[in-house]
């Protein structure tokens, strides 16, 4: 009779087989991924469309004016990006983005026409010139919240518009400054390309800011100031930084605006006096909100619609009023039900199409058709 081992578990062999954990691989399985997310890809596609649109229009017999209008829209988008940073990221309502752009434009005019600086140096100068005002407004924003800040920025904009922007003895005399564009970008078409590159750079910056440490601090401050403070975020610094960054972006937009219009300051050039500047700022803020306040796309939408209503359809008055009415209704309805703007609507629509392809597509085409139909009807009426 052979002796059976009583306790096989004690055998040394079994101890060798103590549970072997699978060591986690340090490098995840290699899988090819795009360096950009799908949303960014969509945004880039949209940008490409905007970039190509004037080309298509011109190819189909349109005039060079479309490049001018396109550059205008891109510049307003740059100014709109400052709204995205200040209001979208940090949650502070500022009603003076166009005033910051005005500072940039005036400084560009002064430096180019009076001091003979090249444009490339004027752009950083225009950005830096907005910093003092941005710091003052930022300091105010630390103390005031919500609607109090809105009133304060409106008041500061009105003040600037009547003192700084109306002081013609410094701002180019009565005629204003006449500026000429830098050499390879003299025509409207090439200048449009320059604006496109600048706008793209600013978008990359704004999107990069969003994911950076500072940007996440801004989002935290927006969502709950006290919690952000409890987490160790310096609320004051964050608010200041967002006003300074927003002001600089608007200042760069202003520098390009000066060069697009080629005549700023004085009485004859582009002026930034009250109360028209305040009205422009408010219109810009509302349009950026309509597009989607917390992503760069909203700024592009805002710039596009603003230029469409104010430049392209300037003569068609009934249509102008109609666009005002239509966008007002959209703004109210969006803010009441979809505060994320067009961007949120688009995302919801894409999800709907994914879940129920047939129904979603019908809804999407229905919305599109309704909009086009209404626009067509009013064009015929007007």
């Amino acid at each position, binding site marked *: 009779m052979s002796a059976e081992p009583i306790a096989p578990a004690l055998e040394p062999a079994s101890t060798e087989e103590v549970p072997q954990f699978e060591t986690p691989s340090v490098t995840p399985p290699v899988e090819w991924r795009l360096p950009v997310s799908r949303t960014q890809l969509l945004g880039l596609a949209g940008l490409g469309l905007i970039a190509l649109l004037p080309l298509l229009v011109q190819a189909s017999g349109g005039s060079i004016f479309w490049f001018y209008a396109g550059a205008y829209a891109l510049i307003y988008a740059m100014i709109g990006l400052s709204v995205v940073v200040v209001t979208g990221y940090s949650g502070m309502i500022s009603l003076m983005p166009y005033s910051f752009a005005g500072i940039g434009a005036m400084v560009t005019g002064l430096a180019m026409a009076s001091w003979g600086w090249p444009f490339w140096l004027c752009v950083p100068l225009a950005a830096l010139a907005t910093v003092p005002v941005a710091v003052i407004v930022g300091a*105010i924003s630390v103390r005031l919240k919500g609607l109090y800040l*809105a009133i304060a920025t409106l008041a500061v904009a*009105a003040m600037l518009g*009547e003192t700084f922007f109306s002081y013609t003895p410094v701002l180019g005399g009565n005629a204003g400054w006449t500026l000429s564009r830098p050499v390879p970008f003299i025509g409207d078409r090439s200048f449009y390309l320059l604006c496109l590159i600048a706008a793209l750079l600013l978008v990359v910056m704004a999107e990069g800011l969003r994911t950076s440490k500072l940007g996440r601090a801004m989002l935290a401050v927006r969502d709950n100031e006290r919690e952000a403070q409890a987490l160790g975020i310096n609320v004051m610094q964050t608010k200041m930084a967002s006003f300074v960054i927003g002001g600089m972006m608007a200042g760069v937009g202003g520098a390009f605006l000066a060069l697009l219009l080629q005549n700023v300051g004085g009485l004859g050039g582009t002026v930034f006096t009250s109360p028209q500047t305040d009205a422009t700022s408010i219109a810009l803020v509302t349009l950026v909100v309509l597009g989607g306040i917390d992503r760069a796309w909203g700024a592009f939408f805002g710039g596009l619609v603003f230029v469409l209503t104010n430049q392209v359809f300037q003569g068609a008055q009934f249509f102008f009023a109609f666009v*005002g009415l239509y966008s007002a209704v959209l*703004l*109210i309805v969006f803010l009441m039900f979809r*505060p994320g703007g067009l961007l949120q609507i688009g995302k919801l629509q894409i999800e709907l199409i994914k879940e129920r392809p047939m129904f979603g597509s019908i809804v999407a085409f229905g919305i599109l058709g309704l909009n086009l139909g209404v626009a067509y009807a009013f064009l015929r009426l007007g």
Partner: protein
Amino acid sequence: MIATQPYLEVTVAGLAQGAVFGLLALGLVLIYRTTGVLNFGHWAIGLMGITVYIGLTSVGTPVLFAVLITMATCAVIGVLAYRFVFRHIPRSNQIIVILIAFGVAQLLSALAEMALGFKAQVTMPGWLPAFAVHFGGATLKSSDIFTFLFAIGLGLGFLVWFRVSRTGRALRAVAQNREAALLAGIDDVKYSSIAWAIGAALAAIAILLIIPHKATASGGTYQGYINTFDLTPLGVLLIPAFGAALVGGLVNMPAALAGGFAFGLAENLRVLAPVPWNKLTYTIPALMIVILLLVRTERLFTTQQEREALEGA
């Protein structure tokens, strides 16, 4: 010796304008206290009033009757704005509330532009009696005197009514503690609608006191005009009105009425200042506003509990 006539003229004009700012501020404060909405679209309600007034007078309605109908129409517009829009927005998110107020202003101004058409000058007749008033060597506008008396009467009458009447007390209850008012059986929506109606009617009468009496027509009567291409002159009336409301910390009505006079006088007395300074139409009120904001006048008029009720909830 300094001549007194210009001072007298400017002071009377300032008092008249101040009374108008005071009425606008009363409406703003009433709406803000009761519903938590600072109405950035207040001027557009006044613009709708002007549109209705122009429409009525152009078909030959007697002017005083037209003014009454205009006030009633604006009250209805205010109620509609509350019922369909502002009632449904949580008041804790002030950014949304402000932007929606801009949206409502844009909606109303687009409607007014469509109704009036695009013209550089849409004229309207004045409705206050016009005659020359000579006092101590100064020539005063009769419309200024009437505006001042009318606005003071209306403002004080409203304040007394707000103090003593049952509706006024209910409005104050809703403003001070919404939930307790609800528990006491006060219909929140009904009284908020009343507040919007009164505020909108005050906006209409304030704008109708100032705009139709800007110029003198050939027959010695008053006449006013607006430019439908550029409505910003109406919009900027809100800047001193906000300032006046801020004197009362956006919550105190007598202080808001008094603040209106401060802003009206400041805006008119600057005309007598030496040359570069007398052109500062907006700078002085704007500076006053920033100072008032930083002083935080609402601390003087509200308890901590009330402030929290206004900002949150």
